C-alpha cells in the first residue's frame, strides 16, 4: 500500500543547548544546513519545475515536437489557464475555438459534482459490501464471483452493454464511474476483515467478547487502515472513470473536464488541452496527498509498518 515518508524532525539536541557552546562560525554553518534540511523538498521542487517549464517553452518555441497547434508553448498554456479559470482577454497565439471565459472552471465544476456524487455512492456501498463479504461466508459465496469478475474486467468493456440498457444520459455516467471505483474499496475492506489476526480475536474472546464485540472492538479497527487504502485506490480509479466516461458520452457543451481535454484536442486548441490537463493533474495531486494525510490521521498506529 501507499507509504508516506515522514519527514524526520531534527533531534532536540542538535539545535538545542549543546549547540550554544559551539563557536559562532559553526552556528552560521548550522543555520544554512538547517534551512537546507527543512526546505530541501520545496527548493528542489521549485528548481525542478522551473527547469521543466523552461524546457517546455524552448521545445515549443523551436517547434521541436510540432507547430503550436500540436504542441503549445508554456506561456500560451498559462494564458489559456487564466482565461479558462478566471476569464479575461484572449491573447494572440491561442485558438479562439473553445476557449471562452471560465470554460475550464465550469467544466471542472461539472466533473467535480459528478465525481463527488459517484464516489460517495461507491464508498458508501463498497464498505458495507466488503464488510458483509468478509464477515458472512454466504454473502461472500454469493457475491464473490461477480465482484472478482467485474473488478478484473476492463471497465470500458462494460460500457457497451450499459449503453444498451441505460442509453446515453447522465445515469450511465454515474454507473460507469461507480463501477470503475467501487471494487478497490470492496476488496480492501474484505481483505481487512479476512486477515484480522486470529490472536487478537482470541485475546478479545478470552476477555469476554461476544461476536458483536469482536467485530466492533477488533475486526473493524483492524480493517480501518485497509478501508482507507481502498478509498485511496478508489478515488484515483474514479478519476479515470470520470475522464473515460466524459470522453465516451460526449456533449455539445459543458461535458466536464475530461470532455474538455478531448474536445479541445480534436478542435486543435492545444493550449486549452494542456491547460485542462494541468488542472486535472493538480486536482489529482491534491487528492492523493490529501488522502495520504488522512491515512496518517485515521490510523496513527500503522506508523510501525512505515519505519
Amino acid at each position, binding site marked *: 500500500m501507499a507509504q508516506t515518508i515522514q519527514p524526520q524532525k531534527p533531534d532536540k539536541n542538535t539545535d538545542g543547548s549543546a549547540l550554544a557552546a559551539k563557536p559562532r562560525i559553526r552556528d552560521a554553518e548550522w543555520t544554512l544546513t538547517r534551512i537546507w534540511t527543512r526546505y530541501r523538498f520545496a527548493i528542489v521542487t521549485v528548481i525542478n519545475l522551473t527547469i521543466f517549464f523552461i524546457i517546455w517553452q524552448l521545445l515549443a518555441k523551436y517547434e521541436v515536437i510540432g507547430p503550436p497547434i500540436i504542441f503549445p508553448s508554456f506561456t500560451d498554456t498559462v494564458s489559456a489557464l487564466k482565461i479558462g479559470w478566471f476569464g479575461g482577454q484572449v491573447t494572440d497565439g491561442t485558438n479562439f475555438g473553445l476557449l471562452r471565459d471560465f470554460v475550464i472552471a465550469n467544466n471542472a465544476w461539472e466533473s467535480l459534482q459528478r465525481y463527488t456524487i459517484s464516489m460517495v455512492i461507491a464508498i458508501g456501498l463498497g464498505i458495507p459490501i466488503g464488510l458483509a463479504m468478509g464477515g458472512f461466508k454466504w454473502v461472500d459465496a454469493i457475491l464473490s464471483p461477480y465482484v472478482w469478475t467485474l473488478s478484473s474486467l476492463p471497465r470500458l468493456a462494460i460500457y457497451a452493454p450499459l449503453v444498451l440498457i441505460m442509453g446515453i444520459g447522465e445515469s450511465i455516467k454515474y454507473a460507469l464511474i461507480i463501477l470503475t471505483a467501487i471494487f478497490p474499496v470492496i476488496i480492501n475492506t474484505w481483505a481487512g476483515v479476512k486477515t484480522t*489476526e486470529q490472536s487478537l480475536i482470541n*485475546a478479545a474472546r478470552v*476477555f*469476554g467478547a461476544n461476536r458483536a464485540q469482536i467485530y466492533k*472492538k477488533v475486526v473493524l479497527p483492524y480493517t480501518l487502515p485497509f478501508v482507507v487504502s481502498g478509498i485511496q485506490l478508489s478515488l484515483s480509479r474514479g478519476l479515470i472513470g470520470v475522464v473515460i466516461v466524459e470522453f465516451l458520452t460526449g456533449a455539445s457543451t459543458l461535458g466536464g473536464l475530461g470532455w474538455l481535454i478531448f474536445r479541445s484536442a480534436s478542435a486543435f486548441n492545444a493550449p486549452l488541452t494542456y491547460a485542462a490537463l494541468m488542472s486535472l493533474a493538480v486536482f489529482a495531486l491534491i487528492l492523493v496527498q490529501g488522502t495520504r494525510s488522512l491515512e496518517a490521521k485515521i490510523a496513527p*498506529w500503522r506508523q510501525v509498518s512505515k519505519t
Partner: protein
Amino acid sequence: MTPTGQGRKPLIVAENMTAGYELERERKLLTALEGVSLTVHDGEFLVLVGPSGCGKTTFINVIAGLVQPWSGSVTFNGKPIDGPGEDRSMVFQDYAIMPWRTVEQNIQLPFELRPHDLSKSDVADKVQAIIGDVGLTGFEKSFPYELSGGMRQRVGLARAMVTQPKVLLADEPFGAVDAMTREVLQAQLEALVMNAGQTVVFITHSIDEAIALGDRIAVISNRPGKVREIVTVDMDRPRLAEGEITTHPRYGELREHLWNLVKDEALGAKDAHHDDDISTGDSRLDRLATSPATTMDPGI
C-alpha cells in the same frame, strides 16, 4: 503458606485429554497433545516446561476455552470447559495487544467487554495501579508501536491481571523482558499470587524461573505432548522476596533433575521437530520463530 498444591481442592482437571489442530490446507490433523491427565489445584502455581512445539500453548488454550479438545475431558470447578470465562484470563505468548489502543486502553479492555459494577474512576484507578505494578508508568498514552517488545509483553500481563481473575494463564509472560525486570516481575507475581490466592498456570522455557515460581512443575514430552513427570518444588514461600533463591539447599538438586528431563525431551525433539516444521507450514510457526528467544540453557 503451603509450598505445594497438595491437599487443596482440584480446580482444573484434564483427563486423558487429546487436542490438536486441523490443517486446512493439507487436509490433515495435527495432534498437539495426546492423553494428557493433569490436575491444577485451587490456589496452586503450576508451571509447564517442555520443548518448543510440544503443546504447552495448546494446553492453556484448552483451559482458556479457545481450543476444544478432541477427546477426553477438561473440567473447571467440576464443569466441562466450553468457552472462555470471567474466572480465567490469559497472557498471550505473542502478546496479542491491540495496536490501535494505547497502553491504558489495552489494559482497560477486559472492563469494556464484560459487565461489571465498578465506576469509571474505579476502573481508571485499577488500570493506573497495575500500570505502576508492571513498571509502565509514563507510557499510559503510548501506542504499542512506540513500545519495546518487553514493554508490550508487560501490557499483556497487566491486561490479564487487572481484573484479578481466579485463574491466570500465562504463556511465557516474561520471555521478552530483560533479566533485571524479569526478577522484579517474578517477585511481584509471587507476592500478588500469594496475597490474592490466585491459581496460576505458567509456561516458561527457563528452568530457573520454573523453580522460582512453581509449586509444581509439569514436564511435557515431545509432540504429541504428554505429561512426562511432575516435580514438586518443596521450598517455602516467599522465595523471591529475600533475594538469592539459588543458595537454597534444594535448588541445585531440583535444577539438575529438571534439566536432565528437559534436555532429554529437547534432544528427542530435534528430529521430530524438523519434519514438524515442514508438515505444518503454519504461519504460527513463523510467529513462534520470531517470538522472543527463550533458552533452556543451564545457566552458570
